[in-house]
């Protein structure tokens, strides 16, 4: 390779104007923007691009197209702000709602196979928390391709990247981000095929690495969602924002956590308890099953706690039987297949057992609305670092994300990241890089690989999953969270002596899974410590010992900074432009 230079000891080095870590929707759209601008860019992914978890998104992507009924971006913005329990930065929410429209239209222009209305326009359906005229009732805003909308977005963007000659490094696992003297200088990646370290020198690095749901026992998240980008940035001095807000999706398959899309309720599905009652009547009389996810998950948890789960067990029923075979086959084929495969249930004729499943991180790497990473409460930009998608916190989701808003978030802010990078790298020289830039991470990985005695990482992984699920779940208390903090720290200490069995260099997933566990532990500590400090309930953060929202003290974002003594918390104000906080009823 002509671009190789030698570092000490010999390390393959690549030079790109921009490097994107992660090949889901945010990373791919950013790559597309860079390719169109003629920037020399590389996309690094620890999977193959089409394996990214964007592909698992089901129900739709919201944009106020108004194809079936009146709709306006202002209504979408309001719903996003209210859905996020007013912790949303409203300048970001405005951008999201406005730019959603041309983003979805551009997807169609790229060839995305949306479902169509009778007159050939993009079809739209209802989704939780999306309303007409500032909360009057449900509105058809979610654009969809059956219940594989995320799959079609991922495929379409990857196809466009192929068309535009984007350079991919598949199965390159990024293990460090190089930040020196207040400037981003590149990343270090571990090539999975042979265990070789590669340095990518670049003045623009974007994290698009997704979430960290694997810290919970029951989760809809892929095994690969281990908070890599969040933890790497955090370790290099970047604060992480609003980590205490983690969304539990109401309808997961009990035990497995696999998601049954909110589209099932958008198409008219009911939730029922053991006596057959549509219990949402008592929690959200206006929107019923289409209330935001945090509220529906809490309602299910309350029903289960009151003994009204099915046969007294820890799940309720999602009832689609009144929808009919035609609607189910045309609009919900994948999720009903999940029920058949994983539960042995036929949704056309039988109710489907469901229970809340850990789903989405509202928090992450703080960015401004141009997807540039900011490192303090004053919004100071760290030159050369960008983030978008679930790993980022801009914050459009505040304390609770609305369904469909993640897909539009990754695209709107992925595109903005691409444009920001294209702007920032124009005419800029590649940064200097120290000869020992990769030494620290090489040492960490070699120590982990070659340690001959120690604990099996699997026991730490499962203990972490139990700790977070039981202590920092749908409901939390000061005591439960405090205990989780203690336990996570014990697990971090045990992790120092963890041992991998596979000592090889070829495709060593034992080693990489164990490194990922380290990322999860760092993220989990920040989640628990941030949750302990926030003595109020807001959105997905439901403290039983502080059941009310407290705008006077807590209408602010949490920033967790990594220190040797654990996360140090600081706070920054919420940007409020249009909608003053009000009680959140549906």
């Amino acid at each position: 390779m002509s671009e190789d230079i030698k570092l000490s000891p010999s390390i393959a080095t690549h030079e790109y104007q921009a490097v994107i870590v992660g090949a889901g929707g945010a990373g791919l759209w950013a790559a597309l923007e860079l390719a169109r601008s003629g920037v020399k860019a590389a996309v690094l992914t620890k999977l193959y691009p089409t394996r990214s978890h964007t592909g698992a998104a089901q129900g739709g992507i919201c944009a106020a197209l108004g194809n079936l009924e009146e709709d306006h971006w202002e209504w979408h913005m309001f719903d996003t702000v209210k859905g996020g329990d007013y912790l949303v930065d409203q300048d970001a929410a405005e951008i999201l709602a406005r730019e959603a429209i041309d983003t979805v239209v551009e997807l169609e222009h790229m060839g995305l196979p949306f479902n169509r209305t009778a007159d050939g326009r993009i079809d739209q359906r209802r989704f939780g928390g999306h309303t007409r005229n500032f909360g009057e009732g449900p509105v058809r805003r979610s654009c969809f391709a059956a219940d594989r909308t995320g799959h079609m977005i991922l495929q379409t963007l990857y196809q466009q990247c192929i068309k535009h000659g984007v350079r991919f490094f598949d199965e390159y696992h990024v293990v460090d981000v190089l930040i020196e003297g207040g400037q981003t200088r590149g990343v270090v990646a571990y090539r999975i095929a042979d265990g070789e370290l590669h340095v990518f020198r670049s003045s623009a690095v974007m994290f698009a690495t997704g979430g960290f749901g694997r810290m919970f026992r029951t989760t809809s998240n892929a095994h690969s969602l281990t908070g890599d980008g969040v933890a790497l940035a955090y370790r290099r001095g970047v604060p992480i924002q609003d980590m205490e807000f983690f969304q539990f999706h109401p309808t997961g398959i009990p035990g497995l956590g696999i998601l049954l899309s909110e589209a099932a309720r958008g198409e008219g599905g009911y939730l029922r308890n053991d006596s057959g009652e549509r219990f949402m009547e008592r929690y959200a009389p206006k929107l019923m099953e289409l209330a935001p996810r945090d509220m529906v998950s809490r309602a299910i948890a309350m029903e289960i706690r009151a003994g009204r789960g099915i046969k007294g067990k820890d799940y309720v029923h999602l009832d689609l039987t009144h929808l009919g075979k035609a609607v189910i086959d045309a609009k919900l084929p994948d999720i009903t297949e999940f029920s058949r495969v994983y539960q042995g249930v036929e949704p056309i004729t039988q109710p489907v057992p469901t229970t809340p499943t850990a789903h989405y991180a509202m928090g992450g790497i703080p960015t401004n609305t141009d997807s540039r990473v900011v490192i303090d409460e004053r919004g100071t930009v760290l030159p050369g670092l960008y983030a978008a998608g679930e790993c980022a916190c801009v914050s459009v989701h505040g304390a609770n994300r609305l369904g469909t808003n993640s897909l539009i978030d990754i695209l709107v802010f992925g595109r903005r990241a691409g444009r920001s990078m294209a702007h920032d790298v124009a005419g800029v020289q590649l940064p200097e890089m120290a000869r020992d830039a990769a030494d620290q991470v090489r040492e960490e990985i070699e120590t982990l690989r070659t340690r001959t005695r120690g604990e099996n990482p699997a026991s730490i992984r499962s203990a972490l999953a139990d700790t977070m699920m039981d202590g920092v779940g749908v409901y939390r208390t000061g005591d439960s969270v405090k205990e989780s903090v203690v336990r996570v720290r014990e697990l971090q200490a045990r992790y120092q002596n963890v041992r991998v069995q596979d000592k090889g260099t070829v495709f060593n997933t034992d080693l990489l899974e164990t490194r990922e566990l380290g990322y999860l532990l760092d993220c989990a500590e920040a989640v628990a410590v941030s949750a302990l400090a926030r003595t109020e309930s807001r959105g997905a953060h439901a403290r039983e010992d502080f059941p009310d929202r407290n705008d006077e003290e807590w209408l602010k974002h949490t920033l967790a900074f990594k220190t040797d003594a654990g996360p140090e918390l600081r706070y920054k104000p919420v940007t409020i432009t249009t909608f003053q906080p009000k009680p959140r009823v549906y």
Partner: protein
Amino acid sequence: MQVQLRILRYDPERDQKPHWEQYTVETDPTAPLLDLLHTVKWHQDGSLTFRRSCAHGVCGSDAMLINGRNRLACKIRVDQLGKKISVAPLPGLKVIKDLVVDMDEFFAKYRSVMPFQVDDDVMPARERRQSQADRERYDDTTKCILCAACTSSCPSFWAQDTYVGPAAIVNAHRFIFDTRDAGSDDRLEILSDADGVWRCRTIFNCTDACPRGINITRAILEVSQAITARGI
């Protein structure tokens, strides 16, 4: 229940050639096979190597040969497989380690059929219209997750590994029959060569193997007919 799990192992740093190893695993009968592979990896032998990500059949990482048939490990339950289960890497592809095969050629073939929309017209301000019937025409082939279960089950591919294979044809089909696309002639030209659609012998292995239920053989036949109809 207790399951005897046989896995074809190969570590290029230790082994001359692949060999079977047997594991006894205690499991819930409704568990997906992927759970058993994790049980072995996490509690018996950490060096067992396989790809996986989403764990519910949509990312396409964990296709492998299970009891003699290509399937996704996350989408088949133990009770569908019985008490003796054998697992091997996808056939016809170079093995990197254990159940991990080299996918580079597979993706290169996918890229070779122009798997992207070709449309050089100036786009309208809003979405283009497409009728529900036109949208339905290519619905089936949009489901592909590029897991390679089809291509690596195809005897024509085993016999001649330059054959572009069912997965690439499926992804060409998805655009050829999309009324919004203008690149069909080029794609049909590519697929009409010696390593294109004519290598299909309608054996239906691909259709049987597809975890997404795509009628792949029909898609290949439709592409063949389009080539003939357009006189390419």
